[in-house]
């Protein structure tokens, strides 16, 4: 099971990285979604596969009777999902507003904060 997940995570990561390396900020955003899911699956993989039994304690007992799924990575993933949703929602709005202000969704052309170096920039002796 872990081997299949490892390969799936690798494929997702590759797709996410490829998308993030696009000049198109929309595709960058898609890459962010894919790589976020890949990260969550990676945490799941590292927590190992113990079968489909959820980490619940039956009524009247103080601990699970048999081997149940690892609860710790699940808690971590839940946190990660919610945070990445917040970040992605913000990124979507940011992209929308950036397009409104700059009239482009090309990351290469968004140069307000870091303007392109001018040809005469090397003369710094003054």
């Amino acid at each position, binding site marked *: *099971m872990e081997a299949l997940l490892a390969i799936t995570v*690798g494929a997702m990561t590759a797709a996410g990285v490829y998308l993030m390396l*696009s000049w198109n900020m*929309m595709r960058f955003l898609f890459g962010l979604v894919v790589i976020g899911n890949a990260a969550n699956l990676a945490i799941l993989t590292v927590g190992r596969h113990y079968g*489909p039994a959820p980490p619940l304690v039956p009524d009247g007992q103080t601990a699970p009777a048999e081997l149940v799924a690892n609860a710790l990575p699940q808690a971590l993933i839940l946190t990660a999902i919610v945070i990445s949703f917040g*970040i992605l929602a913000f990124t979507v709005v940011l992209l929308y507003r950036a397009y409104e202000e700059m009239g482009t*969704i090309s990351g290469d052309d968004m140069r307000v904060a870091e303007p392109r170096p001018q040809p005469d920039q090397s003369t710094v*002796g003054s």
Partner: protein
Amino acid sequence: MIVAALPAALTVFFASLVPEIAAGQVLRWAVPWIPGLDIEFSFLADGLSLLFSLLISGIGVVVMVYAAAYMQGYPQVGRFFIIMTLFMLSMLGAVLADNVLTLFVFWELTTLTSYFLIGFTHETATSRAAALQALLVTGIGGLAMLAGLVLLGLVGDSYELSVLRASGVDVTADPLYGAILVLVLLGAFAKSAQFPFHFWLPNAMAAPTPVSAYLHSATMVKLGIYLMARMQPLLGGTEAWLLTLTIVGGITAVMSSVWSLRQTDLKQLLAYTTVMGLGTLTLFLGLGTEAATTAAIAFLIIHCFYKATLFLAVGAIDHATHTRDRDALSGLARVMPLTFGIALAAGLSMAGVPPFLGFIGKELMYEAAVTAPSAAWLVAGAALAANALMIAAAGLVALQPFVGRARDWPQPPHDPPVAMWIGPIVLAIAGLVLGLAPHLIDQRVIAPAVAAVAGHDPHLHLKLWHGFNLPLLLSVVTVAAGIGLYVGRERVRCWLGTAERLIPGSAERAYDHALAGLKRLAAWQTALLQHGQLRGYLTTIFGTMIVLIAAASLRGGVWPTDADLTDAPAFAWFASALIIAGSVITIITRYRLAAICALGAVGIGTAILFVSHGAVDVALTQLLVDTLFVVLLAVALLKLPSFWDLRHRETGLRVGAAAIAVAVGSLMTMVLLVIVSVPLDRRLTAYFESNSVPLAHGHNIVNVILVDFRALDTLGEISVVAVAGLAAYALIKLRPRRDPTHQSQGRSAADQSATG
């Protein structure tokens, strides 16, 4: 005048310590500073530090009184006096410090405050450049010194100078001695403007004249001399010490006194003679004999007296005539008789003419030179050449502007107000009185200082008349040569002008090149790293990740051993296929909605895998978030240009990006396989499983972890989401007011908030 109160009080205080110190006592005061590192904030007063303290505070009184009159009309005079006072206190801290790290801190405080003083007229570019130059040269030297002092502390097992000296540890026998010597001397040479670091001092003349008088007579530049004197008992007495100090000091003294004759600006001229004085001091501290140390200490005092006086006299001339060019000055004796008298007295002391104190100093130098342990004639020759040139330089400053034909001045110059001559006249008279009656200071001040360097009580007895001997003969030769140089000054200047053109490079040019090169390097690496392209930044990040993981795997030899795919159930295969298909479609589709749907498929596939791992809550959350996000994305992205419109911008597979992507993905797979091949430590999970019900009364372990065991993490998570939501809201609502519609919106919002 109030500004002179502190230095005056300090002078009185230090003077009151003289009898105690002269009796051989050492005063020490310390508080723990960094006890964990055995570092104390400690001060020590012995003969050497007391002499320096007296000079610093005494000359400080003169300069402060003078500056109170001189600085009238300058902007921000208050700041000037604050920095001057801070500078003086830093100097005192440096010469009184017992702990070498305390010494370093005060040392660099003098560097910093002198930066502000040299660049006080910061409106002019030359002032700023000179201040920066002094800061960089002496500051970098100071860092070298710190390294040397730390090594010294390691070798001697203490950072206290007094402990190091008392322990009798032989630093010179340690393998680290060479490094310590080089590093400490770098700091001293940079601070005291020794060749090849001498160039910053003449440039520092951009400062107001009181600053020059203070920094370059009694204080800043003398700190390097102080360090060498202080270190001589620990580091001195070796061939390396002797050779380095005598050669560097000799070159500095002769070279700078030659160049002083080339200068036409009187302050520049004095600056070069200061470098000469510092070179001479280094030379004699290098010899290390008792006679040489006595000569150095005596010359130190003499130099402070006459150099401060001459700087202040030049300041008076500048104040009265608005020029310091010696070609434009003559006949001032008639209109500025008092200034002439002061300058002449100081000039005669500088020239070493009896009965001034300078004469005694010169006799001591020659006596030390002819009794030098090695290369006595070379030392004597260097001292003779430098002294003869000094006589000519003294003539150029103290005689030439005052004699000759009177000039027609637009406003007739006159002697300065009393505040500007009272201090210099005291110093000038002191030079004469102490020359006539050297017994006033020889046992009280000079002998304790020499004892602090030499380690035993010296047998010194200063007097004007030593009888007919070799030093007297050398003095006569010096005076004759000096007068000859003064008479032929114009010819000398012509020769030097020719010589200057023949010299191909200089240390200052090297400094300029280094500074320009540093700026170019900074611009180049900024352009390289901060190029402003998101893709470039990501490439750097992913590339670094690839290199680090690959390097770690190759070094550690960790590779996944087995990858068993047979145990995966069919629906896991299905989910994986769904995810990979969704990813591929996202990449290859040219339709935004198709891409969004494919992303949704990736999310659903992920949720299925969660279910297969018993993560039901996670899968539910994933499905919910996934759905929400697809809707949000669809709404927002339809307002953006479609892929189709932009298709021409991106054709085919981008090979570079694909290579990076495949590399990162493969490494990710590999890392996961390595991790799952080692056994899992389930202790933490076991703790949560066995404590969920007893401690938190919850049966859903994941929920208990989130809201109980790790509740603070969850609070952080909620905060992140809240901040992201607020930021997104602000992005949409707060727009720069450019067009009328937005303006009216903003105004109505403002009205609402005002009424509400």
